[in-house]
């Protein structure tokens, strides 16, 4: 059982997951941001592995990917950064990225390095469930890694169940049709979709992501799920902060206000 499974076993409400891109805003910021998020009481941290062609991401995360690559970020360097603070990290870490850099490294090597660095889970939006199940599931499971699937308002109930049956982590519920990015408010249609998925009584908990940007949207999302994921809004904080050590705890405290 990895750290992510342990967290999900003991906590089922208001789970706060925060995303940031490795190597952004500066190459050496990865470790301090991780420790700062952990100290601020974030439940799960999702680290983006920067890629040249992030097709599921909106402008904010595209820009952070581009800048991180210009800073010289790579998956190998991320593993080094993670290893350097492995003993201090208690919060579960999941890596999000695109399939090509992972295949380039080789899935075997990638999974072994994830394990060595204390990573619990992987999110690869362009790795379809069928490919995962046929070719990569065994490798990930052998290294204690949870694969996390995205589901969307267009995903059929049957397909959601299929994915739920081949993972042991959480379901990443994409809040609306679209790419990542801060949006305003949650609509009636979205609530219907959240309720439809709730009614499926899945094995895995559900976290809502894409468009969650504030205390209000976080609380709303948590009413219909086990928690939510904040990405672009946090990247915006990192982009504009004068002092990360102050800005990060302040942002997380604001998000968690009243919870």
């Amino acid at each position, binding site marked *: 059982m990895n750290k992510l499974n342990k967290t999900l076993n003991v906590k089922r409400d208001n789970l706060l997951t925060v995303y940031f891109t490795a190597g952004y805003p500066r190459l050496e910021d990865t470790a301090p941001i991780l420790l700062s998020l952990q100290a601020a009481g974030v439940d799960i941290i999702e680290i983006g592995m920067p890629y040249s*062609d992030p097709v599921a991401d909106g402008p904010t995360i595209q820009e952070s990917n581009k800048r991180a690559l210009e800073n010289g970020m790579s998956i190998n360097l991320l593993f080094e950064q993670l290893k350097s603070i492995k003993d201090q990290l208690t919060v579960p870490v999941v890596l999000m990225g695109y399939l*090509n850099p*992972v295949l380039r490294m080789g899935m075997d090597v990638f999974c072994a390095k994830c394990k060595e660095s204390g990573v619990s889970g992987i999110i690869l*939006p*362009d*790795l379809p469930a069928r490919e995962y199940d046929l070719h990569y599931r065994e490798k990930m499971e052998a290294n204690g890694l949870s694969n996390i699937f995205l589901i*969307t308002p*267009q995903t059929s109930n049957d397909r959601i169940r299929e994915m739920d049956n081949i993972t042991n982590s959480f379901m990443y519920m*994409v809040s609306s049709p679209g790419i990542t990015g801060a949006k305003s408010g949650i609509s009636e249609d979205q609530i219907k979709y959240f309720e439809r998925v709730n009614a499926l009584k899945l094995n895995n908990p559900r976290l809502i992501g894409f468009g969650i940007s504030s205390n209000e949207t976080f609380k709303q999302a948590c009413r219909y799920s086990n928690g939510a994921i904040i990405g672009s809004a946090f990247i915006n904080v990192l982009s504009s902060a004068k002092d990360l050590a102050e800005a990060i705890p302040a942002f997380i405290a604001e998000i968690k206000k009243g919870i």
Partner: protein
Amino acid sequence: MNYHVDEHGYYGEFGGMFIPEMLFPNVEELRNSYLSIIQSDAFKKEFEGLLTDYVGRPTPLYFANRLSEKYQTNIYIKREDLNHTGAHKVNNTIGQILLAKKLNKKKIIAETGAGQHGVATATVCALMGMECKVFMGQVDTVRQRPNVERMKMLGAEVIPVTSGSQTLKDATNEALRYWIGHPDDTHYIIGSVVGPHPYPDMVARFQSIISKEIRAQLMVKTGKGLPNKVIACVGGGSNAIGAFYEFIDEPEVELIAVEAGGEGVKSGRSAATTALGSTGVLHGSKTLLMQDEDGQVIEPHSISAGLDYPGIGPQHAHLFATGRATFLNATDEEAMVAGMELTREEGIIPAIESAHAFAALKMLNFSKDEVVVVNLSGRGDKDLEAYINWGKY
């Protein structure tokens, strides 16, 4: 050896559907319906009718007398440059817009590099009265301004893409992102044999008209339907697949694909994917792709915007890996020289993309009695400025 797509969308180890879940319902809808729609009699009748009356098919297969004399062989040129809109691209956009109508889609999106596919898409949207958005890298909108204006005249909205390197691959990313956000009413007309299954197979089927005609025309002209060699340029590879399609399972026909060598394969400014690439995943399929050691996609270079793509269609990757097709590459300079040669010997100014195919004539040995077909995928009007800047005429 099977060179065609299997039920899961693979050509050997290449192909597949590597798409975010957000695109799954759209691509799945296409996968489930494309064959039954395009193989229906009603569809075929409408498609073939438009190709004849609107596009101007069949295009001629022209025996190039002076070029044949020069290379001491028998060179036939397939005149895709004579299609309406000036290139083979329209064969695919006619097919896909008819399919989009059958799927009840209301809006069309497309990516474009040089603007040829964008123009071909804007044209069929005007023809069918459908709303059209074309994504084009900001850099390309400046380089290819006349095509931007043509698209606007045809009623399309041209959306300049400022993400990434602002060229074809980024235009493709942006079109995919838009499609993710508009899954219900929009069809994405991909312009080449790339993308997730079923796109490579679907586009290949629409373009296969090229080789079907070559076969029938050769039968009339030479008494046998099979040429010895078929030569075509490859970026993503739609005109090449179209020219090869009928002959893929005829092992005696040599298939020769010519990639853009740019300033030279070893110059760091090239688009010769099979020479420089390795297996990876781009725009929804596993294929050969130009990437660095960390798996980041490398920005290619070619003088021809239509070949300026870091990947290659998965079926081409398979034809390369199995040795069924021979892959050559021509530099910018070699292509321009070959373009001028065709202009002076035969009075035909080719698109710079197609000029790469003609550059292969200098790289191959021919016997006197063999039959060589070169696919002239597009005309050179759009490239006048590049020819003028090159200046050697």
